[in-house]
Structures are given as structure tokens and as C-alpha cells.
């Protein structure tokens, strides 16, 4: 995380009121800086990445996150003597629930997803993994490469480098007693 860092979140939650209020002010500045960054890169973002940057998944329960890489086959237009004649494709899927709604973020990766552990002294529960804050950015200022950084309630940070993303939403119907009886 560049703006909403786990350390800043920890300070914002400090039992020391002065430290907590200082972090509150720092968070204000981080929000301004992040908004300015988003504005400056917005013209370089495809519509799906803009949608990703406008999502609010705060408090959503992370039910699944995984990465899968597989060979996409030999590249016919590259000489076999070339050291890397094979193309690999990798996908990461992060699924969260918000009430009855499931939101899956399906990323076509440009590199491996990285996971950073919680900073030392992370005092929050690790029983459930919930979405806290996230940032969307362009990767190394290169057009067509993006990164999604996600801070989870366990203090873990995900950094997902990607070229495209699909946001898939669906609702899981509530199983009523009547439906249970008829089954």
C-alpha cells in the first residue's frame, strides 16, 4: 500500500488519543494524495479499471483468493531457439461477499500476485479476512499495466499486477425454511 498503509491504520486505531488523531490527519492527506493520483492517471485507465477504482468493498468478507498460472502453448511466430518460446497466462481471483451478494474480481495477471504479511504488533482479529482499503494504480507508470493493492483486516496486503480485470457480481438467494422443507 502506498497511501492507506497498514501502519497508518494501526496508528489510526491507537489507544493513545493523540497518536490516533495525528493518524487521522495523515489519513486526510493520504486521501487527497490518492484522489490526485487517480485523477492524473484516469485517462490511461480502461473502463473496467476505472470501475475497479470506484468499487467500495469495505468490510466485505474475503471468501477466496487464488492465483493460477498455466502455459498457453508454444508461440508459433517465435523461433524455437529463442530461450522463452512459450507463453504463460496467469489469473487471480479474489471473491468477497457483501450480505447476499458475491463479488469476484478476476484479474489477468502481468506478474505474480504478492502477499505481504501483517506488520509487527497487528492487534486486530485474524479469525476472518475482511476488506479494509484498496488502491488502484498504473504499474511503474507503464501504459497497459496496472496494480491493485488491497489491505485486509488481518494486516495482510495483496499486490496484484494485472493487464485486465473482470468484476463479476451475483446474488446468492437466501434459502428459506419453505425451500428447505420441500427439498
Amino acid at each position, binding site marked *: 500500500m502506498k497511501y492507506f498503509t497498514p501502519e497508518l491504520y494501526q496508528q489510526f486505531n491507537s489507544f493513545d*488519543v493523540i497518536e490516533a488523531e495525528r493518524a*487521522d490527519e495523515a*489519513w486526510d492527506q493520504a*486521501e487527497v494524495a490518492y484522489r490526485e493520483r487517480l485523477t492524473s492517471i484516469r485517462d490511461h485507465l480502461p473502463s473496467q479499471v476505472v470501475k475497479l477504482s470506484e468499487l*467500495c468493498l*469495505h468490510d466485505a468478507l474475503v471468501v477466496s483468493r487464488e492465483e493460477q498460472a498455466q502455459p498457453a502453448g508454444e508461440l508459433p511466430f517465435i523461433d524455437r531457439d529463442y530461450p522463452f518460446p512459450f507463453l504463460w497466462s496467469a489469473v487471480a481471483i479474489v471473491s468477497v461477499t457483501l450480505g447476499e451478494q458475491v463479488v469476484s474480481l478476476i484479474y489477468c495477471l502481468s506478474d505474480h500476485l504478492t502477499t505481504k504479511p501483517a506488520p509487527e504488533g497487528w492487534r486486530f482479529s485474524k479469525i476472518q479476512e475482511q476488506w*479494509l482499503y484498496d488502491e488502484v494504480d498504473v504499474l511503474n507508470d507503464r501504459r497497459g499495466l496496472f496494480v491493485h493493492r488491497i489491505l485486509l483486516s488481518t494486516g495482510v496486503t495483496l499486490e496484484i499486477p494485472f493487464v485486465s480485470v473482470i468484476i463479476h457480481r451475483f446474488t446468492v438467494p437466501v434459502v428459506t425454511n419453505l425451500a428447505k422443507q420441500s427439498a
Partner: protein
Amino acid sequence: MARRRKKPQKEASAEPQPAAPQHIYEARLGTNGAVIRVLPPIDQVQAIVIRQRDGNVVVCGPNKTANSVMARDIEQAANGHWKRCRPHINAGPNALPHYQPDPRGQTIGHTFYETDTKHPL
């Protein structure tokens, strides 16, 4: 004749400041993250009971820090472990910072507090 000691003058800033008036309300959620107060105001004990039933409450007053501390105390008394959250940047213009149980579990309630720039309706 003994000299009378001059009493040290109290500085103005050392005067006890009157406590900023604070009010607690039960709250319901509106659109764009809005927090809507339910009149009349309630006391701290009632707020704790509402939070224990997973409802929403909001602490209002001119001093943001005092509001935050009061909200923290309510959440602490109601649920024990808490975490303090700023509204997500995309949560909507009317969203308020709040305290909530940690871990969240199946609960949905919050203890919101008013700030200099974010106010309940």
C-alpha cells in the same frame, strides 16, 4: 512585617474549559453512506444496549476528538474488541467514520461519530 506573597495569576488557558456538548442518537443508514439521526437523543447506556442489539448509533458534537473517544467507549462497552474505520474513499459523500466490533462476524451495526467536515443528517 512579613511580606505577603503574591498569588500566582492563573493563565487564561489553564481555566477549565466547559465540556463541549455531546449528543448520542440512534441512527439509521441512508443512501450514499448517509447516517440519519433518530430523535430524541439517548444516553450512553441506551446507546450501548442498541449496539449490543447490532443497531447503529451516532455521537454528535463540535469536538471531533471527544466524539471519537465517546464512540470508542460505547463500542468498547458494547462489544469489547473494536476497530476504528475511516469511511472508504468510495463509500459516498455522507459516510461517517465509525467503530465496529473486531472481528465483525455476522454483525452489521456501527458506532458513528461526527467530525468537523462529516455530519449526520
